[in-house]
């Protein structure tokens, strides 16, 4: 249909083609990079539901990313040491099964999003940005100083968790898992945007009064969106931890929240494929610029600045023209 659709299809193909090329060219690290792009894009897809559709500028999504990561770290480390997580009121054992870890990651981050959202959504605008930041920082400091699971050192898992029927240590197979999840999440996000709930949520962003006068409560719509958003970002956190076989409090830091947000802005706020483009571009820049100079952050900064100042609507916005997205 639209130009954006064509671009999107191209992007999905590119994300699939790149690791396949790397596989045949025997460049496993390139597959790892593509996997990282897919996972970070997934985190972005999560945040974009709150940010792009709900207009909720959360600078605390690292909290969910980190919770997902620690869900993996804690479960897997207990499985590694055969040391149950809890024996009372009932026995909870660690696990090395990805599907179970994902479920736990999604549920715990959803629960955290429910709590954080319920409190934060009482505020709006910059206050919302800052209170979500505050919650993120609480998790960060907690994770750093809580010694049971490694504190600032984090937790290392020596072998990647398993998925029935697949060898997850093989880069291309792990990529396949993340790719499928990313596509499912994007499909879900696309469906959400068009669903009755999405319609109401988008309207609540544009005109909360309007939504109220037709009998719906923006607060509740936003809270549900925030929880869904947190769950997806949490899932991305679990995958990210599995990619690195390692979790640390850095996942909770405000820079992590900032980076996820940067992906979205680079790609284009509210654009379905925005997070993917943003994450891919960011990682590519990091990879290419990092090789050029010790001071590559300067170039990154200048590039970001140019994107904000001159490519309004992000990369997809610039390519596809003004479509269905807000400034």
């Amino acid at each position, binding site marked *: 249909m639209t130009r954006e659709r064509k671009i999107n299809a191209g992007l999905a193909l590119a994300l699939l083609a790149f690791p396949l090329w790397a596989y045949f060219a025997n460049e496993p690290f390139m597959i790892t990079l593509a996997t990282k792009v897919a996972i970070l894009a997934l985190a972005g897809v999560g945040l974009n539901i709150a940010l792009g559709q709900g207009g909720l500028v959360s600078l605390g999504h690292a909290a969910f990313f980190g919770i997902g990561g620690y869900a993996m770290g804690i479960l897997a480390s207990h499985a590694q040491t055969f040391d149950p997580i809890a024996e009372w009121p009932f026995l909870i054992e660690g696990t090395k099964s990805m599907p179970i870890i994902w479920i736990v990651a999604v549920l715990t981050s959803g629960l955290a999003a429910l709590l954080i959202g319920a409190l934060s959504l009482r505020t709006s605008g910059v206050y919302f940005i800052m209170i979500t930041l505050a919650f993120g920082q609480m998790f960060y400091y907690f994770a750093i100083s809580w010694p049971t699971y490694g504190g600032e050192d984090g937790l290392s898992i020596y072998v990647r968790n398993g998925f029935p029927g697949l060898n997850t240590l093989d880069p291309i197979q792990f990529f396949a898992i993340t790719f499928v999840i990313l596509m499912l999440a994007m499909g879900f996000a696309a469906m959400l945007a068009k*669903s009755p709930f999405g319609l*109401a949520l*988008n309207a609540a962003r544009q005109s909360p*009064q*309007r939504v109220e006068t037709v009998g719906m409560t923006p607060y509740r719509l936003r809270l549900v969106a925030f929880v869904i958003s947190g769950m997806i970002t949490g899932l991305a956190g679990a995958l990210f931890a599995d990619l690195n076989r390692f979790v640390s409090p850095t996942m909770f830091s405000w820079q992590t929240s900032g980076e996820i947000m940067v992906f979205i802005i680079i790609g284009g706020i509210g654009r379905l494929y925005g997070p993917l483009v943003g994450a891919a571009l960011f990682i590519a820049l990091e990879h290419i610029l990092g090789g050029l100079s010790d001071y590559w952050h300067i170039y990154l900064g200048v590039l970001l600045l140019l994107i904000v100042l001159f490519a309004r609507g992000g990369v997809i916005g610039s390519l596809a023209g003004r479509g269905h997205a807000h400034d």
Partner: protein
Amino acid sequence: MTDAVLATKGISKSFGALQASLDISIDLRPGEIHALIGPNGAGKSTLIQQIAGGMKPDAGQIFLNGQDITALGTAARAKRGLARTFQISALAMEDTVLQNAVLGALGAQGRPFQVFGTALGKADLRATAEQALDRVGLMDHAKTRTSELSHGQRRQLEVAVALTLNPKAFVMDEPMAGLGTRGSKRLTGFLDSLREQAPILLVEHDMDAVFTLADRISVLVYGQIIATGTVDDIRANADVRRAYLGDDT
């Protein structure tokens, strides 16, 4: 009072030293259009806000169909059948006209948390929405982005969204504002036809429209109702002429 669809009893509201509403009691009876007029800053929009639930009165009560709704929020009042339009259009500007109308239908249906299926694909929602658009004559623009509508068309859309709620009472804040003479005439005719469905509390500066439509007029000055009566009563009222209409009217 008992047969009033919508009524306020002794509403008062102040902003610091400013008394925006003072002991206001007005009512809206079945089938009527009750116009509320008064100078700028008299407190008309403030009163509408309190009736619709956007603002809590300091004192007094509001009744819809005899039930006290003072404690309810905006959304709850809307669910009970109170539909309002805004002085400054409040619409989802990035969405299409149809989407705005479907939003109204969705609110009326009361199940906003459906994540499966598309909003525009739900036959029941769509039927309600299209019917409302049809009534205000916006069906041709169903696929237009709302931000591309003219001022007048936005006012029509506001009314259409209110219609999707199938309300018991309308509260309209300056629906004619910004419409040309022709637009006002059309909307006047339309509002006239609307009163059979539900009565309208109408705030309006357009005296042509008010004098054509209103069954009763209340005049609000400095937060107080200084007169209520028929068109002729009000035109003849010396206080009203002094405070609002002036000598030329």
